[in-house]
């Protein structure tokens, strides 16, 4: 099932979900947890902003109508820093005003409550594809092919499975291909609050290099790493 495959992209991803209605929130969190590596749920716009300061996320799913700060306002602020992160809106509002504002904010999908399973999953797929730039497979410098959904590297006939951290790290580098990525960025993205030792990063890089070919990831001295494509 291709859809399942696509949604597998999300299996190593972190999502921030904002919904003020607890009854809905818990159920949606239950659903999201099936697809994401990590689901963080908050109850209002302010918490959204706090959370965004603390961690980096791969996807955002917001309700519009929330106390303190509505979803659209939160998204507007987020978009000032991050233009790419896919955002899905789950809203009871169908008013045009909201839609106009949403369009300006480059929303991936605008879902109106209540939504059905197909619509919901389709939205997730769209967002997942956006994360990977619409290609499930990417050919690395070493000639091997990385598959986002299965999180495997294909060397000819041999498929090597990457762990969650490995795939997260690789996809993070692929997204910033030909750019140097600092150690801090990597810490924040992979480990969040726990401060791992430099060794942890090194061993992670080592494992990934082993699986995709060492020439793919270069050391940038004193700063971090860079993936060349």
């Amino acid at each position, binding site marked *: 099932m291709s859809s399942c495959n696509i949604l597998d992209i999300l299996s190593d991803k972190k999502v921030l979900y904002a919904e003020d209605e607890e009854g809905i929130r818990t*159920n949606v969190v239950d659903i999201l947890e099936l697809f994401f590596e990590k689901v963080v749920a908050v109850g209002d716009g302010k918490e959204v902003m706090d959370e965004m300061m603390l961690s980096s996320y791969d996807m955002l799913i917001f309700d519009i109508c929330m106390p303190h700060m509505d979803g659209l306002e939160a998204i507007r602020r987020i978009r000032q820093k991050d233009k790419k992160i896919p955002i899905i809106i789950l809203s009871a*509002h169908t008013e045009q005003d909201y839609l106009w504002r949403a369009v300006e904010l480059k929303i991936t999908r605008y879902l109106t*409550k209540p939504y059905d399973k197909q619509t919901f999953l389709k939205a997730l797929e769209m967002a997942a594809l956006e994360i990977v730039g619409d290609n499930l497979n990417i050919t690395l410098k070493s000639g091997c092919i990385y598959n986002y959904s299965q999180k495997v590297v294909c060397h000819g006939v041999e498929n090597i499975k990457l762990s969650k951290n490995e795939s997260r790290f690789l996809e993070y580098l692929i997204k910033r291909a030909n750019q140097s990525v600092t150690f801090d960025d990597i810490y924040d993205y992979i480990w969040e609050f726990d401060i791992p030792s430099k060794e942890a990063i090194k061993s992670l890089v080592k494992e990934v290099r082993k699986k995709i070919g060492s020439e793919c990831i270069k050391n940038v001295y004193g700063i971090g790493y860079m993936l060349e494509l």
Partner: protein
Amino acid sequence: MNYKQKRMISVKTKTITLVLAIYLVLSAVFFFIRYLDIKDFAQASQNSELLKVKLVYNQTLKRTSKFYITRGYANINSFGIKEAFSKNDADSLYKLSLPRWNIIRKENKYLKSFCFYNKDGKLITYFGKKPQNYLLLSQKNTKSYDGFWQGDNSLNYHTVSIAKDKNSDVIGFITFVIDPQYFLFEIKKLMNIHAYIIYKDSDSRKNIFMLKDDKVAKDTIKSEQIENLKVIETKNGIFQPYIINGIGIDSQNSFKIIFLQDISHWKNTLQKAILQSLIAMIILILITAGIISYGFDMILKELDESNRKLRKSQNELEDLNKNLQIKIKKEIQLKLKKEREANEKERILAHQSKLASMGEMIGNIAHQWRQPLTQLSSILISLELYFERGKLTKDRFQVKAKEANEQINFMSRTIDDFRNFFTSKKEKEYCKVSYAIDNVEKLLLASLKNNDIDLMVEIKDDFDIYGFPNEISQAFINILSNAKDVILEKGMKNGVIHIEAFLENDKKIVIFTDNAGGIKVDPIDKIFEPYFSTKHAKSGTGIGLYMTKTIIEKNNNGKIEVQNIGKGAVFTVIF
């Protein structure tokens, strides 16, 4: 009206008649008194006149006799007269006396003759008309005398002067003969009274009028019995006769002098007086009648005028009444029509309002349901996904099923709430203000929350309201919806609506305050007019607040006011 006029006229006539009658009586009395006065005066004057006439007659007689007797003596004593008498010399007497005759004759035209008689009484000579040949009483008298006597069918007055010689022997007589008319003339001259002499013929004893050609006398006297002072009325006039018995020279020669005083002027005076009185009376009567008539006419006119005015105003009043009735009828019809129209309009409005509020309610239901529906769909999605992955444990399924049931129950309750709300109660009842506000809250909370509008309810005094609770809730909902719409329209993110219920001076007050910047309508009460809306066509029908006012003020004995205070509009509902 005619009757009244007639009555007035009869009063007028009566009054005039009465006044005139009094006038007539008074006039008659005065007239009578005057008449008596005049008559008395006339009587008195007539009596005095008679005395006067007698006096004049006597004096004239005396004077005349003295005059002519003296003349006679003067003639006797003249030169040669006595001698001639003695000689019976007629020529001498004639010649000697002729100058005297010429003088005397000129003095008195009534002097008939101047005669000389001898001592035997035989006529010697004469001047003038021829007298009797013999002098009457010549022998008896030695003294001069005078008197009337008849002769030659006429009555004459004689004066006789006796001529005597030295021995006092009678030698002759000198006589003057005077026409008695002389006396009449004298009296006429002195008193302006006509006099007539009647004497009786010595033979026939018939009355002879001395002045035969005097028509007046003839006509007047006509030999009838003439009594002293008995008024004679003829066609020539009215005469008062005075009769004097003339003394003749002897009894045979007695006669009567009749004076006829024309008393027509008395009569005339009397008549004039009567006439004057009559004329004065008539003039007075006429004037009085005129004045009274005029006065009455004036009064009547005035009465008529006021009557006319009264009638006119009565008519006008009647007209006015009629017009008024017609007007009132028309007005009532118009009013009824308007009322019907208004009722129809009201009905339509109410219907529209009902539709609108139903639309709104459906919107509210949608809000209310969106949440549980979303939750349900989420539950279903998660169950399905968990099942697909074989992760659906019994516990999870049970928990989720329970959760779903709760949501379904919640939705069912919501529907009940709305349905209750729309089943309007037929009778007024007491309900707590908190009940009405709770209703509102229940129905609107989801909608407000979805629009991020805070609703703060503060019930300081939970008083009772007597009315239709659902209607009151409806009115409150309209106020809240209005506030909500304005907040949304302005894109406000911190909309707050505050409801406050409290008692103040026994007044039950509910206040709705928002912070949407107030109502920019002037006059502000215009927002209560039907079809008035500041909102976009999609959200406002323009009857919400109108229905609110109608519900509160007409159906529930309340009052609603609106004003801008601070940051927003404040609706005050007073029960």
